[in-house]
Structure formats: C-alpha cells, structure tokens
C-alpha cells in the first residue's frame, strides 16, 4: 500500500474499472473499428454503383461514428487508464514502465486516427467528384487501417497481462509484447469487431432507413462482411481459448457467476441467434424482423460484457500473470513483507506496527491494502461482500483461514505479512461481520 487508497464501498473498486472497460470495448471495437470498416465499404460500393443515396447514408453514419468515438469512446479509453490509476496504481504504473514505447506508438497512431476521422467527415461534401472522391475514399481506408492499428498495439499489452510468456524471465519488451496470446487474441478481436458492428448497427438501419434503394445494398454489405467474420471469429476464438493458461481456463465459467448449464445454454442460444440472423440478412433482407435485430443487438452487448468480465477475472489472482497480484504485491515485496510486516512496508499506512490497542485499525489498513481490490465490506455484490461472507465465523476461524486463503480459493493471492498482522486483519473482519447495521 504505497499510495493513498480510494474506496467505493458499495459499488466495489474492481467494478468501476469493469464498467468503463465494457463501454469502451463496445465502442472501440464495434464503432471505431467495425463500423468504420462497414462505412468505408459502403462508400466504395456507392461509388462503384453510383448510388448517391448510399453515399449520403455513409456520411450520416460517419457523423455518428465521429460523435460517439470522440466523446464516449475517447473518454472511456482514457477513463480505463484514469480508473486503473485510481484503483490499481501499482499495476498500471508497472505496465507503463514495461510497455512505454508501445504506448507511445499507440498514441501516435491514435492521433492520426482522430485526424483522419476529422478529415473524413468534414471533407465529405468538398471532395465529391472524380479524383477528389477517390482521395476521400483513401482517407477512409487509412482511417480503417489506423483504427485497427491502435487495436493491434494495445492488444499486445492486454494479452501480456494474462500471458506475459518469457517476459517474466527475460524482462525483454519484445517477449512481453509478442506473447503467447497476442496473435490469437488480435485475430479474434479483429473479426469480433466487425460482427459487433453488424449486430449493433442493423437494428438502427432496420428502424430508421426506410428507403429500400439504400437499405438493401447496405444490408448486403453487412451480410458479406458477416459471412467472412463469423467463421473467422469462431475459429480464432477457439485458438485463443486454447492458448490461455490452464489455471485461467478453468475459471471461465466460474467468472461469469453462472451455473455451468446456464452458461452453456445461454451461449448456445446466442450463437444460434446470430446464425439465424446472418442467414436472414443474406437471404431475405427485406423482411428482416425487428425483433431478431433487437435480440442480436442485446446479445452482442451481453457477449461483450461477458468477454470483458471473463478476461479480467480469469487472470486472478494476478494482475500481471506470475509477476504481480491484483493487490499490487510482487514476489520480492511479499518476501520483505513476510519478514518485516506488511504495514512496515506500506508508505501510506498510519500504523506501522500492530499493538493490542490499534489492532482493529491496523486490520482495516491491511484490508484496504490487500483485499479492497476485489472485495467490499457490504455492497451489492454479496459474494464479494466480506461482512456477508464471514457472518457467523468465529474470529479463530477467520484467523486460520487467512494464511491458507490462496489454497482454499486459488483466485485469491496469498496473504502477506506477519502473524500479528493476520490477527489484526481477523479482528477487523470479525468486527465488521458482527456489527449491527
């Protein structure tokens, strides 16, 4: 605990990051990458078929891409970073040190992406004929390429958190970046983005684009992209699953919080739905049911939520696999802390040494440092609320549970600190679990 802690007692600290990340993935993948590919394809198709109305629709869609990505998209992207800084400073700080130059490259690409987007939208009416229109389309293609490039860089960093591979031994940047899940997850995300864009945008096209001269070609473009992307997503998704560590793979179903049966059934239904939807889109686009489009829209959001939650959860107890635990503790620190005490090595702890008098207060500080990243005391997520989980436990049992917690529940990091600190934490937890509210 080297930085001041910020606590969201009801919502839970981990959930803050999760909610921002889910919104960001929806927008970055679905809108910035996927929808851009669809829109640029539409512009191209409009030029080839001289369909002026389709061209205007592409412009209209670009306006929405612009509005969404430069507000919610950009700010949730920066927001993931803001929130991890507030909630897991050790982790994000370390990642920045490892991947600094990748992030610099990402930034350069990102700046260009925004500039391309601004040019693409604001020159739509001025670069209209002949050569100028070609130039405009080229800007669109560059935009699509650069939005994909931002993903291809950030994916290296994200994948390394789960599978840093040889980095933990070599500490080489390139080993960390081109880690074992880099390629499968990048491929998976690429086609997932396009599927997501189709799923998110079809309902709006179905509801608001009345003119068949535009709607039909647009849905046709969607269905062609869908026919390529769905199989690719599935194949690459399987490869991705195969390449994650066993310990993590075992946590997938658990991390959704669903019983195994329910998990299987829900995912099968969603998959069947998307297949029916794609066939319908290809064969009878004129009669595409609103209900079906809506169901696909909702399942897509659900799937992204699931994907993000799973991706974050299966990494437990680590934040950087085999290097740093979720609470910021590394092997080297754990050694020192087990020797001299957790609090003694915590810059911001007010208490450095546990005494009989300050026990409960010391326990609270230890809780904030080691448990807060995943737990609350009370709070809506009752499985993670310790007052709820520990109701009825005698203080003695809590005390003997703590040193073994990483064995009983492998998604928890081991406790670090001295015997007195275990007692202090137990005293604090016992107190909050038995307080009348």
């Amino acid at each position: 605990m080297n930085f001041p802690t910020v606590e969201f007692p009801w919502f839970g600290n981990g959930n803050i990051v999760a909610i921002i990340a889910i919104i960001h993935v929806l927008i970055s993948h679905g809108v910035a990458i996927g929808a851009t590919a669809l829109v640029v394809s539409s512009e191209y198709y409009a030029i080839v078929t001289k369909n002026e109305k389709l061209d205007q629709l592409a412009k209209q869609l670009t306006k929405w891409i612009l509005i969404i990505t430069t507000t919610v998209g950009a700010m949730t992207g920066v927001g993931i970073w803001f929130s991890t800084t507030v909630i897991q400073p050790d982790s994000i700080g370390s990642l920045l040190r490892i991947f600094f130059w990748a992030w610099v490259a990402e930034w350069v690409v990102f700046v260009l992406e925004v500039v391309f987007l601004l040019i693409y939208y604001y020159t739509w009416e001025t670069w209209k004929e002949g050569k100028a229109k070609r130039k405009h389309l080229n800007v669109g293609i560059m935009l699509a390429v650069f939005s994909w490039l931002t993903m291809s860089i950030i994916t290296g960093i994200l994948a390394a958190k789960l599978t840093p591979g040889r980095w933990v031994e070599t500490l080489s940047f390139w080993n960390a970046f081109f880690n074992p899940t880099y390629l499968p997850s990048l491929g998976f995300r690429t086609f997932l983005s396009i599927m997501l864009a189709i799923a998110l945008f079809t309902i709006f096209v179905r509801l608001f684009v009345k003119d068949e001269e535009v709607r039909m070609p647009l849905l046709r473009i969607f269905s062609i992209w869908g026919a390529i992307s769905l199989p690719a997503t599935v194949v690459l998704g399987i490869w991705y699953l195969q390449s994650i560590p066993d310990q993590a793979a075992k946590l997938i179903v658990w991390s959704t919080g669903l019983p195994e049966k329910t998990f299987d059934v829900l995912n099968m239904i969603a998959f069947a739905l998307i297949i029916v939807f794609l066939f319908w889109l290809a064969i009878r686009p004129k009669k595409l049911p609103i209900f079906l489009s809506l169901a696909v829209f909702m399942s897509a959001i659900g799937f992204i939520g699931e994907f993000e939650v799973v991706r974050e959860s299966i990494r437990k107890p680590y934040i950087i696999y085999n290097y740093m635990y979720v609470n910021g503790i590394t092997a080297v620190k754990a050694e020192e802390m087990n020797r001299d005490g957790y609090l003694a090595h915590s810059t911001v702890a007010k208490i450095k040494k546990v005494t009989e008098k300050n026990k409960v207060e010391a326990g609270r500080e230890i809780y904030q440092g080691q448990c807060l990243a995943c737990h609350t005391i009370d709070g809506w997520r009752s499985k993670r609320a310790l007052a709820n989980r520990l109701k009825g436990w005698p203080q003695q049992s809590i005390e003997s549970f703590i040193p073994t917690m990483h064995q009983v529940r492998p998604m928890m990091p081991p406790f670090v600190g001295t015997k007195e600190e275990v007692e202090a934490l137990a005293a604090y937890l016992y107190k909050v679990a038995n307080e009348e509210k």
Partner: protein
Amino acid sequence: MGVLQLSIPPDFPLPIPGNLTLLQFLIVLTFVLHIIFVNFTLSFATGAVILEASAMKTHSRRLDDMARICSLHASIHKSIAVVLGVAPLLIISVIYTQYFYTSTLLIGKAWLSLIILLITAFLLLYVYKFSWEKWENKKGLHFLVGFAAMLILLFVPLIFIVNVVSMLYPEKWSGANGFFHSLLHYPQIWQRYAHFILASLATGGFYMYLYFSVKQRKQTLSDVEQSLKLGGVKVAFWITLLQLVFGSLLLISFDRNIMLLFMGDDALLTALLLLSVFLTILLCALLYVVSKNDRPSMFYASLLCFVLIVGVMGWMRHEVRESYLKPYINEYPRTIEMKKENIKPVNKQ
C-alpha cells in the same frame, strides 16, 4: 485518506524506460501541444456562448454567425486536445510516478469524475454545433446547452491544476482532504487558473487572426469572418497585456526560494523569464500594429513570436516542477537501472 506523514513511496522496481532527458524534452513538447488545443477549445466554447448571448440581446445576425463559427472550431479542437493530452499523461506517469500517482489518488474521485464531465461537455458541444439551425426558434434552450458545456469546460482545468500543483508539495499531502479542500489548501492554484484562462482567451483570439489570414489568401473574407479576425486580434492584444500582471502574480505565489531562482539566483531561469517578458511585449506590439494596419509580414513575425512564447512558458513550467521536486528526488531516487533481483517472478508452491 488524510493523515499521511511525508509519504513519498519508493519508486517501482521496473526502471524508467528511456533516457530521462529525452523524456523530459518530450513531456514539455507534448504538454505544450496539448495545452494549445485545450486553449482553443476553451476559448471558442466561451467565445461562442458570449457571442450568442450578445446576438440574442441585440438581435444581430452577424454576431450569431460569428458564434456559430466559434462553436464549429471548438468541437473540432476538443477532439485533438483530448488525444494530445494522452502523451504528457503517459510521460508524467512514468517519470514522476511517486508524486503524480499520490497526487492523483488524493483526489481520486474528482479525477474519475473527469470522465463523466468531459463526456457530457463534449456531447453538449456537438448538440450545440449541430442544432444551430434546427433550433433557430428555441434560442434559449440552444444557448443553455452551450452555456452548460462552457461551465463544465471552465471547471475541468481546476482538477488538472490541483493535481499537478499538489504533486509539488509532498509535505502538504497529509493535511489535504479531497479535491475541494485542496483548492484552498495548496498555494498557486488560483494564480495558475487565472494564468491559464487568460492564456486560453488570448490563444483563441490569436488563432482567429491566423486562421482567417490564411483563408484570406485564397478568397476574400466575408464580413463576419473579417470581424472574427480583427476581433481575435483585439482580444489577443488586451488579454496578453493583462497577462503581464497575472503572470507576475503567479511568479510571486511560488515558494520564495523557487521564485528567487527566476530573479537572479539561477542564470538560465532568470534569462528565460526575461526572454518571455520581452517576447510578450513584442507580441503585444505586433498585435497592436496589426489592429491598426494589417500587413502580411506581421503574420509570420507574430506567429514566430507566439510559438517562442509558448515554448519558453512550457520550458519554465517544467523547470518550476523540477526545482520543487529536486530535494525529494534526491532523497527518494527514481529507478533508472534494471535490477533483476528486484523483479522476480512468483514461485509457485
């Protein structure tokens, strides 16, 4: 939060990933780029709202058109301001980790609120811009949208300023209690705010002069555009004059030993300060000439002068931070070298 002693944490065991001087150069460069676009955004949003208000009051078509052009520029530049802000954030997190992370966490909830605040402000700016014609008959509502965006944009800088100021005062951390308390707890904050807001207005005015001067080379300007151009020059001139006062106020708000570095104790810093004052007066003179008699040669002279001022300001600002932090960094050094024994993997039992 609250009662920390002098709580500067040890630096991370992972080393700083690059040459420190290079990173310091980059942080000054990218920060300056960021802040210029922030200046544009803020001044055009404010300018649009003020112009629209006067247009409504006087039923002037011309003022309304001027306001609309401002709003267009505001929403374009805000996108660039945000992406450019990421680079200095990246660098400050890496080279001032121990200070910047602590100062961020001390105002953690305000820092997170930036996400909501900026999303809201940016969406409002789009509504403001894209509904200008559609809401011709709902002027009151339209104005309110712009006004709300402006208020948020005027508030947001305080969060950033509290953060970058509080990182300079580790011995005041223990007395700080959240964002609003920090506004009065740390010195410099309001002086910096005033300096920044004035700089924004002046930069925005200057941009209008540059933008329409360039446009003028290809086509004659409309009446509205001409007014924006000359109005911009006037705003830039008067505000920059005022800045001589507010800049001095900022200087005297520094700790005495730091202030004196700029007043003779350090030759380089003193020279920089003198240079910046000289350049500022020169820019005012150039702008004055432009406002009387616009000549193309003035364009390059004033642009050069402006770029130099901003560069010198950015550099001095960096030196202020370095001077404040120097004693602490000596005591709690950064990790420069990779020491493998400090970065071991977890051994599985």
